[in-house]
Every structure is written in C-alpha cells, then in structure tokens.
C-alpha cells in the first residue's frame, strides 16, 4: 500500500509545488473583486476586458511579441551561420571561437544589460525597443549556437557533399539540404529564444525608454499595488509561453518520431 501511495503523494506534492503559484495566478485573474486574494469571487472576465481595453498594455504586449520574433530570428540566423562555419571549416582557433560564442551564457543578464547600456550611451544610440532586441540577441545567440552546433553531425556532411556532387551551389546546399536536415534543432532554438525574450525583464528594463515590453509594463504597474488586472496579464503571458512550448513539441518533437 505505502509502496504505491508514497510515490503518488510525493509526485503530487512536487507538481502542486510547481504549479500552485501559476494556478493561483490564473484562478484570481477571474476574480470579480478588486483584490486577488481569497475568498474567490466570480468567475468574471472583467479584468481581461480591462486589460485588453488598456492601450498601454496592448501596445506593450505587441512590442514584446515583435521584439521576441525579431530577436529570435536574428539570434537563430547568426547562431546557425556561426555553427555551420565552425562545424564545416577548419579555422585557426576554432576551439577559442567556440568558447567565446558560448561564454555569454555564463554572464548574468544584469551584467549583459549594464554593459550594453554603457556601450550604447558611449556611442550615442538612444534607448528603444531596438536596443532591447539587441540585448535579447546577445543572450540568445550562445544558446542558438550551442543547440544547432551540437546537432551538426557527420551524417549531414556526406549529404552536403552529395548535394555538391549533384551540382548544387553553396547557397543551394545550405538552403535545400543543411537547413531542412537541421530543422528540428533550428526550430527548437527559435522557440526557446522566443520564450526567453518574451519573459525577459532586466535587459528590457535597462535598454528601453518610452516604448517598453510587457514585463517592464507589468513591473511599473506592480508599483501601484496588487490588482486582479496583473493576474489577467500574467495569465496572458503564461498562455503565450505555453503556446510556444506546445508548438515546439508539435513541430519539432513530433517530426522526429
């Protein structure tokens, strides 16, 4: 009895621990009152209506989506070209280049953000969504490079040679053979970059000014106290992240099996 019960209890406890905050957040986003605390009154969609009617919030949401999509695309493109170059060509100092590309993973977002802030101010570039996007490329590029580089095996080398042998030019080799064969890794890197950029606060906070991303907007709202509005926004943010993860699961891992 205890043999089956104990793992069950433990497993349930672990999942409750992980998901209780999220569940509470989502539950109280449907609160009918003005405070997201028990007892639960509702359900009501008034806070969602409130959020979606708020121009600042919807603007921030769209800003976040734009920054996430664009910075993820740039990070994946740069990561792929770096991985392809280092995996297929013998360069002097390959190991060093590889280490330099991956090293930013170990630097905290705060340091990356501060560093970029100092550099941008030195060279006189104003803060905007673009600079936040640059920051997100900086933090996602090492990840994209590592994921794609790790999946560039010997199997692909011969397929690329075969394509060349059959008359494909270099651009055709990359676009028709290398990229499709690496599609699972490239898509995984892309979706991961999107979710990381979507949730990222510190760099976006440091590198934006008038137009801000959603986490920054939420933070400024938090200063005026708790409200079920925040729960509603949080639930929407969570929904977008979950969608990205589900897409990743469907598009990438389903193809493999």
């Amino acid at each position, binding site marked *: 009895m205890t043999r089956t019960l104990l793992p069950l209890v433990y497993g349930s406890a672990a999942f409750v621990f992980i998901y209780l905050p999220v569940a509470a957040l989502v539950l109280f986003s449907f609160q009918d009152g003005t405070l997201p605390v028990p007892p639960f009154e509702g359900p009501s969609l008034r806070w969602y209506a409130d959020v979606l009617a708020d121009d600042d919030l919807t603007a921030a949401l769209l800003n976040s989506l734009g920054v996430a999509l664009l910075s993820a695309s740039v990070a994946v493109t740069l990561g792929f070209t770096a991985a392809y170059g280092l995996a297929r060509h013998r360069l002097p100092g390959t190991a060093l280049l590889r280490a330099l590309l991956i090293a930013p993973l170990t630097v905290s977002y705060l340091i990356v953000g501060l560093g970029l802030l100092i550099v941008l101010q030195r060279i006189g570039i104003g803060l905007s969504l673009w600079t936040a996007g640059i920051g997100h490329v900086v933090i996602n590029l090492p990840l994209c490079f590592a994921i794609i580089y790790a999946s560039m095996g010997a*199997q692909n080398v011969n*397929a690329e*040679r075969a394509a*060349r042998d*059959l008359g494909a*030019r270099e651009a055709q080799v990359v676009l028709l053979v290398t990229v499709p064969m690496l599609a699972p890794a490239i898509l995984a890197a892309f979706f991961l970059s999107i979710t990381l950029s979507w949730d990222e606060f510190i760099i976006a906070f440091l590198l934006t000014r008038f137009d801000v991303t959603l986490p920054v907007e939420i933070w400024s709202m938090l200063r005026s106290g708790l409200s079920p509005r925040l729960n509603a926004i949080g639930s929407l943010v969570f929904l977008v992240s979950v969608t990205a993860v589900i897409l990743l699961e469907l598009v990438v891992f389903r193809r493999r099996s």
Partner: protein
Amino acid sequence: MTAPVTLERIGHSFGSLRALDDITLDIAAGEYITLLGPSGCGKTTLLSVLGGFLTPDAGRVLIGGEDMTRVPAVRRPTATTFQDYALFPHMTLRDNVAFGLRMAGVGRRDRRARADQKLDMVGLLAQADAHPHALSGGQRQRVALARALAVEPDVLLLDEPLGALDLKLRRAMQDELKAIQREVGTTFVHVTHDQEEALAIADRIVVMNAGRIEDAGAPARIYRQPASLFAAEFMGETNRFSGRGTGGRIETPFGAVDRPPPAEGPLTLCLRPEAVRPREAAAQGSLAIGPSRVRDAAFFGTHCRAHLTPDAAPDLLLVAHLPAVDPPAPGAVLDLAAETADLAAFAATG
C-alpha cells in the same frame, strides 16, 4: 554517358601520412574497376580525388581527356554514391533522385519522368513517394545509385556501396550493380575491401596498399598470378613457402618448375588451397607434391578443407581444398599435385 579516366602520378599526404604515392592508372570508358585494399590503403582517398572532393598534392586527373585536377565536384562529370548513402532524409525518393536534375535546371515534369525511370530501373518506382527512413539498407543503396545515375555522369564513383549490407544481400546487389553498369555503360569505379566482391564484379581489379598500387589486372590473373606478395595474400588464403631461383628455373620443395623465376636466389612461393588436388585429378605436367599425411579435414559444402604434411617437406603444413566428398580421416596419406600455372613466385625480401 561514359568517359575514360587517366590518373597521372597522383600523390597526396595528410600531415606525415603518405595517403597516395605516385598513383598512375588508366581506366577505359565503360570499364568496371574496383579499388581493393585494406582500410587505410588510400582507396577512398583516391576516390575523393576522382570525385573532386580532394585536390591532390601532385599529379593530374584527366576525365574524358580533360584536366580535371582542380575542378571541384560540382562541375565534374562524375557522381558519387557514399558509404552511408547520404540520402536527403527530408525528401521523397523521387525528389532525392531528381535533385541533380533540379540543380541542372531541368523542368519539373521532365525531371519527374526521368527520376521515375531511374527508380524503375532499381525496382523502387512503387515507393517513389516514400521517405528514405522507410527503406531497408539495400533499398537505400538502390536509391543512392538511382540518384547518382540520374545526372547521367560519365564516371560513377561508388564508395563501399555494399559495405553496410549483410552477406546474402551483398551478393545479390553485386549482380544487380554489374547488370546496371552493363545497361548504362557508364565507367564505374567501385571501392571495396571485400576481395570476393571485387572478383565477382570487376572487369579489372586495382589492389592498393599503403598508398600505392600493388597490382592491377583482370580478376582471374590477379587471383592466380598476383604481381606482389601483398596482392597474393590479400586476394585470399594461400600456402606460402620458400623456394629458389636457379638457372632459369624455380626450385620448390617438391621439385623444379620449368619457368623463369622473378629473380635468381631465394624466392617466396604461393599456392592457393584449391590449386592443391589429388594427383589423379591433376592435369599432365603438374607439379607432384607426392604423398602427404592428413592432419585434419573438415567438410565445407563446396569443398573439403584439409591440413596436410607432405613427406617431401615435413616442416610444411599445406592447406588444401579437396573435392567435396567424404573428408579423409586424420593420418590418411593422399598423393597430391598442383597446377604449375597456379604457383606464384616472388623474390624473397628481408
């Protein structure tokens, strides 16, 4: 389409390793050549040089009379099938086979028809819309072959095409390869380390070792009268013993053979197990080995394999493939002889 190939004094090194050393070889248009040798002998490197994947340090490659030494793979009239097939996993078989035609700018309808024709040739037209992962190893090899032949190369290069297949399938595929080569008439250069495969399939075998050509010639000649001791041993099991070249004759432990020796002085002699036969079955003028005592014998289906000690040379243990009747009992004495045409002689070294 087909073209002759000439290799002139090809040399190549990887660091301190001499991978190819002064390789000179003429291949006629429409010939089926196998490059045979142990791993690391340079045969795959030579294939890379032919395919344009590697520019040699020295020498020239001529295909159809044109100097191709520095022409990259993409512009050579060659096509390669790779050891791991290197099919494009994200494309259907038809798209795989049509890939080269697509690169050459052939229209969709035309390249589809030509790809289907090649798939039909290798018996896979019914699976044209399948993806490579749904196929067995032998089928993948067929697709790789169809894909390479679809661009109608002058020279087809095959890197261990049957290496990943099991023995039975390998034997069936080698017959098929030969038949396809007859049909298309393209020059085939086939790399293998399996001497049986080479013997069965090639018009001419090129035996390689340590970056050099040891021997090149028709399969029967290479098997029976190899040009070097290495070739003799690589082509199959052989009995090796000492002899002497004196006065224009070869002296063996069993008497002299009236044939000019390769050198005066000590010789190494090689005799295939199946060249040793019972005296009554041997032709006139064969070399008499004389009475020999059976140490052991086993039945192998196509022959009986026996170890024997000849009375004329008691230190020697001969391996013989005798006719497939009841194996002789240990201790029995057989009167043996060997065809002199099957005796290979080399100047002894060291």
